């Protein structure tokens, strides 16, 4: 590196901070279009029923109603689904969960729309409801009667109520257990967690004068919205334009469609713009949630602590539609071995349809669930072997040339540093931890994980304007994590220009290069690298212009700080971007446009090392790592656990913006605390019992530890832009296991079911487990 970095590595406040603190940021609910109508949804009261017919007369007759749509407005072949195309935008022929959208109304006001929706009569014929994976597997009743005919993007093995199945094997698992000195087997269970982004889902659809649909929505990918609306409505993508306002938080819930296709259908029918914003209750009931997992984990080790074999079997509740579930199954199984050397591995599982809300992408994507199992069990193994739990792990973690499951090559590995830094910062093993207050028990707990950032495709376009400033155009949504800022920093440093000289373009399917989405901790890594590539292309063109202007060879030129090209070693011989831009626009060469796109193409599974059946993700991404120590206090009277302090180290490759990286670590840890201790979606029979913020609780300021120390580890990944990898999810993943381990060390109680509510801990302490 010639010049010191101006932007990369700096704690730059979010570029859009001022508009957010002044209340001027426009989220989907804040948008208004002339002539706009309001949409409302009628939800299914039954978990499983055939739709015999509709009576729309009363609804259509209501003053102020402009359009009504039902499943009849969506043709049969037009189904959406990220992996398995099993879903219509509105229930068609059948309802499959309580709360499922069945019909929708566009009217002058929201109140009229809601009243009209309630006036729609639907003739249902109830079917048996299948409310658990076990029940669904055992039943001759099929939730998706056509599942074997649905289009699938991978070999899912769908049959009956089995949505998909996946298996990874490496080595010889039976031999592995025979060679082990000790074998441990445990069962774990995790619960459905709701995303609870502060902003409920919503969309605004409008038909423009050319008859094209324009759709704004709370979303994690304008391209997914475009594709899904195209699929759901059976119209070409050229007729759909998707844009994004500011997004009020998203943790996987806004990655796949919610009401966008419904709003679009209403807008087409009413011939007026239609805005539809879900209530908080509807957001709980009809979007998506984190998969409940049932996990059986079996680990074989040598007496000296060497890991030999691991088998993990999982059973996932899919809910009524596949959505991202096959990916969660597959990714969860890939992560289930943990970032360890295991010569013999078998990870397998099934995903089963049930008559409940669809489960889908949620920060961690299956890894928090399997890490709970693996990291809890390892602590118990350490105890049995008489080894320190961190030492046992350090003995077995992936090093240097080691490969995670499947055989992907690690291009960077800061895991050991993560472990050592939290161990040292927390004072692990050094005398007594903070003494427990009277009536409390207290202990530290540890866990680690690997996660990935990457997947699929991203592109970037860098343009030099007439005045020499730069426009950066990527298709990546900033969902609050700060990617607009980070990508601008990357662009600024790649071109050695001040950050203020970069204009960032809001994602627009009409004008932006494709970006799969803001998910999978991928934007800094994938889109960032596309930005570096696009900047490099722009640099080439800048240098070409400059070589002609300075009459020298291109190889003799370099970018210099401030936005100029100079002769190497002769800084006075330089030309600014402005001069070059003038020449390019008015004289020769044409305006400078640099672009780059790529798709992650390192295969996940090396067929010489591992076998895979039902692999939903053939090529994933770069590995990130995290280790966490939590200091947990348990109340002896109530059993309530509280995280008093936490040290979370994340290997992010390179922190383009340490302030924003800390924000991701802190936010992830606290969301993980919610998952571990407090949160649970509860079903009362077929209906969700707690779809409100009165009844479903997330951590407040008083449940989040103030002494939360984010530790940034930088392993400089060669694949990443300036060495960066992702951080969005990895901070959350090991949290539940670390807390479980702390509770075990404080109370002697090992819990196997999330959340670790006060009730469960107390019962454990009293020996009266349910």
């Amino acid at each position, binding site marked *: 590196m010639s010049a010191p970095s101006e932007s990369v590595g700096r704690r730059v406040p979010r570029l859009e901070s001022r508009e957010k603190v002044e209340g001027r940021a426009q989220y989907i609910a804040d948008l208004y279009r002339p002539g706009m109508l309001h949409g409302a949804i009628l939800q299914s009261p039954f978990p499983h029923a055939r739709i015999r017919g509709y009576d729309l007369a009363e609804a259509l007759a209501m003053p102020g109603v402009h359009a009504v749509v039902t499943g009849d407005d969506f043709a049969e072949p037009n189904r959406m689904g990220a992996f398995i195309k099993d879903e219509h935008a509105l229930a068609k022929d059948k309802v499959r969960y309580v709360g499922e959208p069945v019909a929708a109304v566009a009217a002058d006001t929201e109140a009229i729309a809601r009243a009209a929706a309630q006036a729609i009569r639907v003739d249902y014929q109830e079917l048996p409801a299948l409310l658990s994976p076990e029940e669904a597997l055992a039943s001759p009743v099929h939730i998706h009667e056509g599942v074997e005919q649905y289009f699938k993007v991978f070999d899912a093995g769908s049959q009956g109520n089995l949505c998909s199945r996946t298996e990874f094997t490496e080595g010889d698992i039976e031999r592995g257990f025979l060679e082990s000195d000790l074998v441990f087997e445990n069962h774990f269970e995790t619960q459905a967690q709701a995303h609870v982004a502060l902003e409920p889902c919503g969309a605004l659809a409008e038909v423009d004068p050319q008859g094209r649909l324009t759709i704004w929505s709370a979303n994690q990918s304008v391209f997914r919205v475009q594709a899904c609306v195209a699929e759901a409505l059976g119209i070409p993508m050229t007729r759909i334009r998707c844009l994004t306002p500011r997004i009020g938080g998203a943790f996987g819930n806004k990655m796949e469609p919610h009401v966008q296709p419904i709003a679009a259908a209403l807008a087409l029918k009413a011939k007026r713009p239609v805005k539809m914003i879900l209530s908080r*209750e509807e957001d709980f009931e009809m979007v998506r949630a984190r998969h409940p997992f049932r996990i059986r984990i079996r680990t074989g080790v040598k007496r000296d602590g060497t890991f030999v074999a691991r088998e993990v079997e999982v059973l996932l509740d899919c809910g009524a539609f596949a959505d991202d579930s096959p990916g969660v199954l597959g990714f969860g199984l890939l992560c289930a071995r943990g970032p360890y050397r295991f010569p013999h591995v078998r990870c397998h599982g099934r995903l089963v349809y049930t008559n409940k809300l669809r489960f889908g992408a949620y920060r961690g994507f299956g890894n928090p669930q399997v890490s709970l199992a693996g990291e809890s069990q390892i602590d118990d193994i350490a105890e049995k072997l008489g080894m320190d739990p961190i030492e046992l792990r350090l003995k077995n973690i992936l090093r240097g040339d080691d490969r995670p499951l499947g055989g992907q090559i690690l291009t960077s590995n800061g895991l050991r540093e993560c472990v050592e830094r939290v161990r040292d910062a927390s004072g692990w093993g050094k005398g007594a931890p903070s003494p427990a207050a009277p*009536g409390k028990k207290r202990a530290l707990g540890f866990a680690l994980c690997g996660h990935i950032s990457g997947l699929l495709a991203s592109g970037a376009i860098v343009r030099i304007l007439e005045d020499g400033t730069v426009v950066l155009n990527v298709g990546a949504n900033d969902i609050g994590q700060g990617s607009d800022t980070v990508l601008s920093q990357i662009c600024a440093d790649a071109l050695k220009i001040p950050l203020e000289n970069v204009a960032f373009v809001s994602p627009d399917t009409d004008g932006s290069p494709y970006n799969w989405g803001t998910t999978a901790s991928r934007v800094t890594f994938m889109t960032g690298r596309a930005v570096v590539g696009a900047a490099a292309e722009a640099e080439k063109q800048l240098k070409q212009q400059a070589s002609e202007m300075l009459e020298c060879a291109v190889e003799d030129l370099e970018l210099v700080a401030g936005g100029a090209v100079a002769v190497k070693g002769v800084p006075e011989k330089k030309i600014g971007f402005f001069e070059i831009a003038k020449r390019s626009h008015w004289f020769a060469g044409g305006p400078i446009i640099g672009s780059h796109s790529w798709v992650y193409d390192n295969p996940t599974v090396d067929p010489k090392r591992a076998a895979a059946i039902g692999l939903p993700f053939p090529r994933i991404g770069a590995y990130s790592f995290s280790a966490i120590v939590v200091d947990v206090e348990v109340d002896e*009277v*109530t059993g*309530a656990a509280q995280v008093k302090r936490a040290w979370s180290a994340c290997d992010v490759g390179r922190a383009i913006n340490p302030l924003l990286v800390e924000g991701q670590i802190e936010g992830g840890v606290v969301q993980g605390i919610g998952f571990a201790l*407090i949160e*649970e979606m*509860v079903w009362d029979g077929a209906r969700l*019992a*707690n779809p409100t913020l*009165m*009844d*479903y*609780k*997330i*951590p*407040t*300021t*008083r*449940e989040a530890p103030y002494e939360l120390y984010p530790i940034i580890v930088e392993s400089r990944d060669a694949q990443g832009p300036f060495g960066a990898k992702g951080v969005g999810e990895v901070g959350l993943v090991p949290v539940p296991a670390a807390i479980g381990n702390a509770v075990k060390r404080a109370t002697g109680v090992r819990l196997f079911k999330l959340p670790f*509510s*006060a*009730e469960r801990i*107390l*019962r454990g302490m*009293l020996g009266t487990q349910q």
Partner: protein
Amino acid sequence: MDTGLFRPESVAEALALLARLPDAKLISGGASLVAMINARLADPAALVSLAGIGELKQIAAAPGGGFRIGAMARHRDLAAESRFSGTLAVLQMAAAQIANSTVRNMGTIGGAVAHADPGLDYPPALVAADASIEIAAAGGRRQVPAGEFFVDWFTTALQPGEMVSAVHLPAARPGIGLYHKFARVSGDYATVSVALTLVREGRAISTRAAIGGCGPTPLMVAEANRLLSGDPTAENLRRAGELLQAAADPVDDVRGSAEYRRMLIPRMLARAFDEARLRAGAAR
């Protein structure tokens, strides 16, 4: 006119409105009522706002000790009321743990008490404090002991056309009043709460303990109070917990199972009692 918002300036005027408009709803802080309106569980055509009635806003010291708390007194003011010392601190502590600071700015004791959600913090505190609820009716005012005011789930001794006008606290006795609340997170309704007052009478103590969150109304058992008074032994404490546990009628809900709530009763009672006793200087 039978619809709209009415702003009486006296209790008598408010009662007259309620008599004339039987479907009208009273609104004090508004928090619970408006939440119900937003959830489409209520759609009143007429509202009677109590905001303009002076006597309802005062927290007045009563002659001979004690206090008369107007129904419109806000949680925030009760939470900060430094005059609620000794045993009356139980009410101050309960008010301070309701929801969060913004909601405490809005909610009132009269509105909360009339709503009678068993998860609320006031009911057990008022029972432990031996408070009484002043009810205003067309025929006059009457006072009902807190223990008799809360009748069932969301049901009080209020008859149609009546309103809560005040809460009366007896004179503070030198001693301890405390309110312990266990909830899933800060601001949630209590899973279980214990409201306890403990007074030293020479070498003996006099205790009142009420349990919240464990049935349709706050739970107090006279025999348990007796066991916790005088010079109680550890066995007394255990028996008192058992009695309260046996008398409880908790439900299973997302805040806790009925069985867990029963488990918590003696444990939380013991913690509250031991703390109160220690602070009163009356530990064994």
